[in-house]
């Protein structure tokens, strides 16, 4: 009896020791599994993210191939609907170019295409002002253009008018115009009656912008030549209702894509809020 008791207690203790080690081992295993499992989940998540981006790249690759083919057909005149462009609808065209891609040879070629299409008034914008610095060179190399003067009216002219703009023509010019309005505000003498009422009108703001050289025409269409679809700080007051088209990098510009962008613009109907 005594030996039976002893053997059962020994078994019990052995069972406890075994359970303890199994538990310990299981805990370590669980921890390792959790760590490994968490790592596996993270790896899977990252792989899925990369897969999604590869899918996006492939989609854009396919779209670019299709666009390149269409552009080729348009420039050969094989697509009927692009043959007649109602270019008169495009009064003023703005082109935003990424400053790092501002090769003057590409710019001059683009201007030549626009001149061939009959575009009369163009604004060239780049954020850093590189095009502004090269304006004399561009005007010299491109015969068919003159510099846009602020008081120029948008009429049909024999030569294309070219305006050059940069980031400093945006917010800073609005601040200058604000100071013009502030001077008027000071000279008026009284402020107590202005509490809660509108002091200035949009036309007064327009006049003030004109005074400081910032009231160029509002472009009908803005073409962005750069890696991303972004207007890069083009003067805000001028692109409130402007159609914005992204054309891709300037170095891979295509004549057919230009025609297509202008064609799409001519087909747009704007309600202006109505």
């Amino acid at each position: 009896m005594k030996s039976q008791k002893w053997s059962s207690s020994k078994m019990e203790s052995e069972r406890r020791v075994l359970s303890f080690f199994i538990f310990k081992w299981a805990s370590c295993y669980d921890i390792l599994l959790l760590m490994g499992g968490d790592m596996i989940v993270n790896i899977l998540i990252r792989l899925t993210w990369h897969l999604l981006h590869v899918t996006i790249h492939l989609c854009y690759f396919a779209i670019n191939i299709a666009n390149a083919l269409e552009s080729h057909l348009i420039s050969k005149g094989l697509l009927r609907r692009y043959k007649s462009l109602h270019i008169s609808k495009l009064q003023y065209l703005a082109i935003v170019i990424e400053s790092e891609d501002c090769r003057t040879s590409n710019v001059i070629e683009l201007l030549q295409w626009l001149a061939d299409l009959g575009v009369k008034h163009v604004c060239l914008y780049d954020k850093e002002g590189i095009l502004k610095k090269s304006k004399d060179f561009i005007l010299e190399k491109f015969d068919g253009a003159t510099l846009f003067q602020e008081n120029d009216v948008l009429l049909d002219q024999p030569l294309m008018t070219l305006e050059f703009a940069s980031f400093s023509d945006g917010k800073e010019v609005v601040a200058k115009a604000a100071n013009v309005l502030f001077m008027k505000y000071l000279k008026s003498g009284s402020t107590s009656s202005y509490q809660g009422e509108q002091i200035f009108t949009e036309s007064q703001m327009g006049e003030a912008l004109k005074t400081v050289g910032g009231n160029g025409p509002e472009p009908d269409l803005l073409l962005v030549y750069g890696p991303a679809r972004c207007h890069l700080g083009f003067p805000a007051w001028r692109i409130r209702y402007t159609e914005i088209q992204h054309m891709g990098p300037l170095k891979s510009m295509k004549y057919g894509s230009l025609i297509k962008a202008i064609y799409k613009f001519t087909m747009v109907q704007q309600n202006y809020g109505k």
Partner: protein
Amino acid sequence: MLREDIIIHIFSGWRSFLRKCLFRVLRVGPIPSHIAVIMDGNRRYAKKKKIDDMTGYDAGALALLHLIIYCMELGVKYVTAYAFSIDNFRRNPEEVQKIMDLTMESVMLLTWISKLRSVRVHFAGNLQLLSADIQDAAKRLMESTAGYKNFVLTICICYTCSDEILHAVEESCKEKWDDRIGIMGYDKGNDYERLIKVVDIEKHMYMAIAPDPDILIRTGGEYRLSNFLVWQSSCCHLSSLGTVWPEFGVFHLVWVVLDFQQNYRYLAKKKLQL
């Protein structure tokens, strides 16, 4: 189904689980801090579904509700929606009144949501153009949620960017008026020192509450900003979707965010250069 039931339905169920998994994958890459939307295409949606315009707007409001929830789950901190432009007052007065009624209903719903999820609600625009009851409800909601910081929803109502700039210039003039001592007689022909700076104008903008948007989505297949956040969108990824607003869903949001992530480095570089 009551809107509250819809919200509870969105937050629960297997769809919510799958969505959270998808957003977990997206969060491997950079997530935009601020998304702005131009909710275009409600009337076209109504025409397509052969329903009346107001039901179309109702569907649009529901789509916005979904977007808010998706953005909260994704980790976007600011959402701005272009609900009603000053230009929209040119519409049929009956239509405008119905939109105002929908706005009032939306303010009530936002009051409920803001308590549920600690959402700060801000109304950006010339609120004096609204009726007194909507103005009061909007102001009460703004005051009651001013302390919440986790998520900021801005509803642009009676808003245009040109009005915003004008308002900011007026407020800057009023602020500078108090510093006028020593300024009188400063106007020496055209040679004046800049008194109002860009930073003064920006701090008085209706949108000063939020940073510049990272993504600006326009639905309805249009490619213009229609006087929305033109000042703030210098380095913003502009995304134009062919789908009409009421049909905007989680996969459209995923596509837009993936597109943003593709261009993130370039846009972040441009922002730093500002």
